[in-house]
Every structure is written in C-alpha cells, then in structure tokens.
C-alpha cells in the first residue's frame, strides 16, 4: 500500500493496526513527511471552525413554497420572517443594550439613594433658591471664626488638601447647585451684567466641611445676600460650567450640533476607499457618576462614545471617536487677589482620532475578541487622551456586545497652570460591523 492510501485510510479512520504501524514508522524516519502529515491533520481538525454554515435566506424558502403553491405552516412563516430576520436580530440587540443601560441606571439610582441615607446633604440648601454667596470673604468669615490668609498660592499648597470620593462629589454637587442658582439670577435679573458662574470655596473650608457638613448647610441657608452683592467677575472656564447644564437634545439634534450623526459616512467617503474596506461602529455607554442639585447620580444613559473604525487589515483599525462624557475638575483660581479651589463636574463633548487593535487569536474559539483602543483628541477645554481595553462578544453575524475598562485623561489650563482629570470607568455597548 502506498503512502497516499495509508494517509487517506488513517484520515478516514479505516486504517488497520498493521498499516498504521507502517505509516507511523515511515513518519518516524521521514521528518519532512511527518511535518506535512501533522499540518494536514491540523487543517482537517480546524475545518469545522473554518466554516460556519450560513442559514438559508427566508426569501428563498418563501419563493420555493410560493412557486410550488405549498402553504407554509404559520409557525414556519413566523420563524423565517420574523425571528430570523436581520431587523429582528438588530432590534433584539438594541433592546438588550437598552435593558442593560436602564438596569444600570435604575440600580445606580437605588444604590445612590441607599448611600445617601443618613447623610446630611449639602444640597438641601438648593431648595431655598437663595443667592448663596457674592462675597467670598463674607462667606469665608462666617464659616470660620479664625480668619485665615488665603492670598498666596504657597499657603494653599501648604494646606496639603486631601479629598475622599464622597467629599469630592459633595463639592461637585455644590458647584452645580451654584450654577442652578446662577441661572435663576440670569432669569430674574437679566439686566445685571455678567452673572457669574464661579464657585468659591476656600481651601480651609474644604478641609473642614468634610467633617462638618451640617454646619455648612446651616450657614449657607442663613446667607441671604441680595443680587446686588454679585460681583461681575469674568470666568475663563465659563463655557465649561455652562456645558454642565446643556440639555441632552442639544447634543443630538440642533442645527448648531457639531456632530451630525445622521450623515452616512459610508456614502460620503466610499469612493475614496479601497475595494475591501471594512467599517465598524461602536456605541458605548460610559458609566460614571456625577453630581446634581438633588444628590449623587449615576450618569446612566447620558454619556456615550461613538466610534467609527476603518480596518486597515483584520486586526488594526483607525477611526473617528466622538463622545459626551463627565469630567470632574479640580483647580485653583485667583479672584480679587484671593485664591480658591474650584471643583466642578461638567459634561464635555470630545472628538478624536482612534486606533484599535483586535486580538483575534484569543482562546475559546472566537467566543470573545479582546481589543485595545487608544484615542487622542480634544474637548472645549483641552486635549484628551483615552485608552480602553475590553472585549467584543459576538451575538450575531455583524453585531457584538462590547464591554471594557476605559481610562480618560483630560488636560486643561487654568490661569497658566496645567491640570488633569484622570478617571477609570466601566463601558459597555454594541459593536456593529458594516
């Protein structure tokens, strides 16, 4: 029996022990043949993974039955026309995405309510709708009987302020509260020039109020300053603060919207693309927490990341990244010769160029595809660098669930001093191949 028949018999499982010994003896002495044989076996073993059977399109079945005049059972019709349709699959994926989003939003709310129980919230004062502070000095003096000189940066730095998470959020609450009251004044006293958006909290106050929020709330309520006491101070980052109050629909649909998501990117640039181009869209929800006048909120569905990728080859892709994300900021400012620490939590629109690497050789037979993503871009207040690691979990042919860890770094300048916000978040969403 020749080598071909021995190998074919072995592959077909029909080789007898005697011939098997002959084959293996031959392979033992002939290294090249052994290598060939091993590779052939590997190819055959991989064949099942290489070919995933395609389902018969429902219109083919309908045409056949229609031509033959056979009435299909209603269940078969339902299965083929509804359940198997690509629109249904897309709809189910979208529904799943919304369900996860709303669940996280809902449980986030519950968690926040639970967390805030027993805490004396600084935001209670927002119900009074009082003008809080116009003169930071008066505010400061009321808060602390021992007057501290805050005029120099050196002293501020020496104070060695450290914040815990809750405290930071409380202060962020406070900043938004002030913005709300600011808007109140804009409406009530439109003739007043340049209503300010600043938040004035001294560093000393920061140190003390974390341990004595009750005291702070009382004092804030007592301060019923008149509108005239507002000083028209200019605020270099006022746009940042205003963004905090932007309604969500502005971002999506107004004519001034810088991001036109209805435009078909494919239509626009397809003449410029090579023949075998491949696009992918990632819709992500970034899970962070932000502060509102009513307390700590999970951002839920109001933060997103939209990433369009063009694949250079099967693993490497470049693309455009657009998003809307919350960035807690903490910086010092000098107002009327006094130095203040300002903390705010604006939502910023960012745009950038991204690079993605997909690792297709991951184990578990393509059950998930790990990726690394790097974005460099800009926001209204400064440059941004974003990194993301995660995995796409294929659901259907063109749609995958996307989960990952996401790191954003916002760099911004306040009074010639560079600051940065660095945060880690969990992200999830959909990955759609076009």
């Amino acid at each position, binding site marked *: 029996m020749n080598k071909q028949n021995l190998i074919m018999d072995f592959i077909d499982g029909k080789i007898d022990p005697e011939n098997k010994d002959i084959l293996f003896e031959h392979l033992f002495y002939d290294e090249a043949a052994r290598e060939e044989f091993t590779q052939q076996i590997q190819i055959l073993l991989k064949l099942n993974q*290489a070919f995933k*059977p*395609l389902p018969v399109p429902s219109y*083919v079945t309908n045409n056949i039955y229609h031509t033959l005049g056979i009435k299909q059972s209603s269940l078969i019709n339902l299965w083929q026309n509804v359940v198997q349709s690509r629109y249904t699959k897309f709809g189910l994926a979208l529904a799943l995405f919304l369900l996860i989003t709303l669940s996280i939003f809902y449980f986030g709310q519950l968690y926040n309510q639970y967390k805030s129980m027993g805490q004396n919230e600084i935001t209670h004062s927002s119900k009074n709708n009082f003008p809080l502070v116009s003169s930071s000095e008066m505010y400061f003096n009321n808060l602390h009987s021992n007057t501290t000189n805050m005029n120099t940066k050196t002293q501020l730095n020496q104070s060695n302020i450290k914040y815990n998470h809750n405290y930071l959020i409380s202060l962020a609450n406070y900043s938004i509260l002030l913005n709300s009251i600011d808007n109140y004044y804009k409406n009530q006293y439109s003739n007043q020039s340049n209503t300010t958006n600043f938040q004035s909290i001294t560093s000393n106050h920061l140190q003390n109020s974390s341990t004595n929020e009750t005291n702070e709330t009382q004092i804030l309520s007592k301060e019923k300053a008149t509108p005239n006491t507002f000083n028209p101070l200019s605020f270099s980052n006022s746009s940042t603060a205003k963004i905090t109050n932007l309604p969500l629909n502005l971002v999506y649909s107004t004519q001034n919207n810088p991001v036109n998501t209805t435009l078909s990117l494919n239509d626009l640039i397809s003449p410029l693309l090579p023949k075998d181009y491949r696009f992918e869209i990632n819709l992500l929800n970034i899970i962070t927490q932000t502060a509102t006048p009513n307390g700590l909120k999970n951002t839920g569905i109001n933060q997103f990341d939209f990433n369009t990728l063009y694949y250079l080859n099967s693993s490497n892709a470049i693309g455009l990244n657009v998003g809307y994300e919350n960035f807690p900021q903490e910086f010092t400012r000098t107002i009327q010769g006094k130095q203040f620490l300002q903390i705010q939590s604006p939502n910023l629109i960012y745009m950038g160029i991204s690079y993605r690497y997909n690792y297709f050789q991951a184990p578990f037979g393509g059950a998930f595809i790990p990726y690394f993503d790097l974005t460099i871009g800009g926001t209204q207040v400064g440059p941004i660098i974003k990194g993301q690691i995660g995995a796409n979990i294929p659901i259907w042919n063109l749609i995958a669930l996307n989960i990952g860890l996401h790191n954003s770094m916002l760099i911004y300048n306040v009074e010639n001093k560079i600051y940065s916000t660095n945060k880690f978040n969990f992200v999830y969403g959909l990955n759609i191949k076009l």
Partner: protein
Amino acid sequence: MKKYSTYSDDQLFEQFCKDKKNRNDIFTEIYNRYSARIYNYCVHLTGNTQDASDITQETFVKFYQHSEFQSYSSLSGYLYKSARNHAYAILRNKKEKIPLQDEELEITENTFENKDLSELINLAIEKLPFALKEIFVLRYIQGLNYEEISEITMTNQATLRTKVYRALGKLQKMLEPHFKEKIKEKNK
C-alpha cells in the same frame, strides 16, 4: 408532519415518490433537512450567496416537480447532483472560467499576516482548483462519503480519494508558511 421527522432519508425519498397525498409535508421535511446543506454547498461552488440562493430554489422546485427518480439511489445524491448541475449551468452562462485542470496557486506571504488558521483555511480552499475544491468540500465540509460523492460527480472512488489527497496536499503547501511562522513564535 411531525411523524416524518423520524423517517430516514431513504424512507422519506420512498414516501415522497409514492405518497402523493402527503407530498407537501414530506417535501417540507426534506427541505428542512437539506436546504441549508445544499445552500452552503452552492455558496462554496459559486462563491456568492445570490447564485447560491437561485440554485437552491431551482434545485428544490425541480425536485418537487420531478416524477422519475428511478436513476437515483439516494435523496442526497439527487439533491447534490441537481444543485451541482444548476451551478455549472449558471457558471457557464456567466462565462466564468471553471478550471478543471490544476492551475498555479497564488498565495502571498502578506496573506498570512494577522489571520488565524480558520481564516487561512477558508482562503486556501477558495484558491484550490475547482475540480479539487468541489470534491474536498463534499467530503470534508458537507461530510459525504466517497460513494455518495461518486454518484454526484460520476467519478470512481479511487480517483476521488486521489483528488482529496491532492487537495489536502495543496492546502498544506499553501498554509505551510503559517505553520512555520507559528513554530518560530513558539521557539522565541
């Protein structure tokens, strides 16, 4: 219709020829069993889903309308052969070249970049000469035995085994750089 799901292919085929009253139900059972296999076979033969859809429709419509099955020993044999004939007809109508002889295999080193073995196998099979590809697909992707393939392609079994062996050899040669690359990576 439920009762036909327990029938073997031969029983179904026999019933389909004899039982005119329940012909539609029997056809539905046959269609459920074979439509995906025939469709995927056609995708491999023609290389596109549109032609595969047309051929699948033609095959099953002709099967239903056909009344003389004496010359066919098996249900799968009839369906595959019918699909194959339609595929050849479509390809000839399109004046596409169907190389029945071996041609030079072209697969560049760039092809191996960033692709796993499954993807490469797909590519390599597409590059096989048509006559080898067809038989390899029937044997290892459709899972037919040599007897069934012999009936479909009207080729004797010894020749089929040789063709399958040659196809496997060509696939191995095309994918050899990938395997060598993997060995290098392991040794690093």
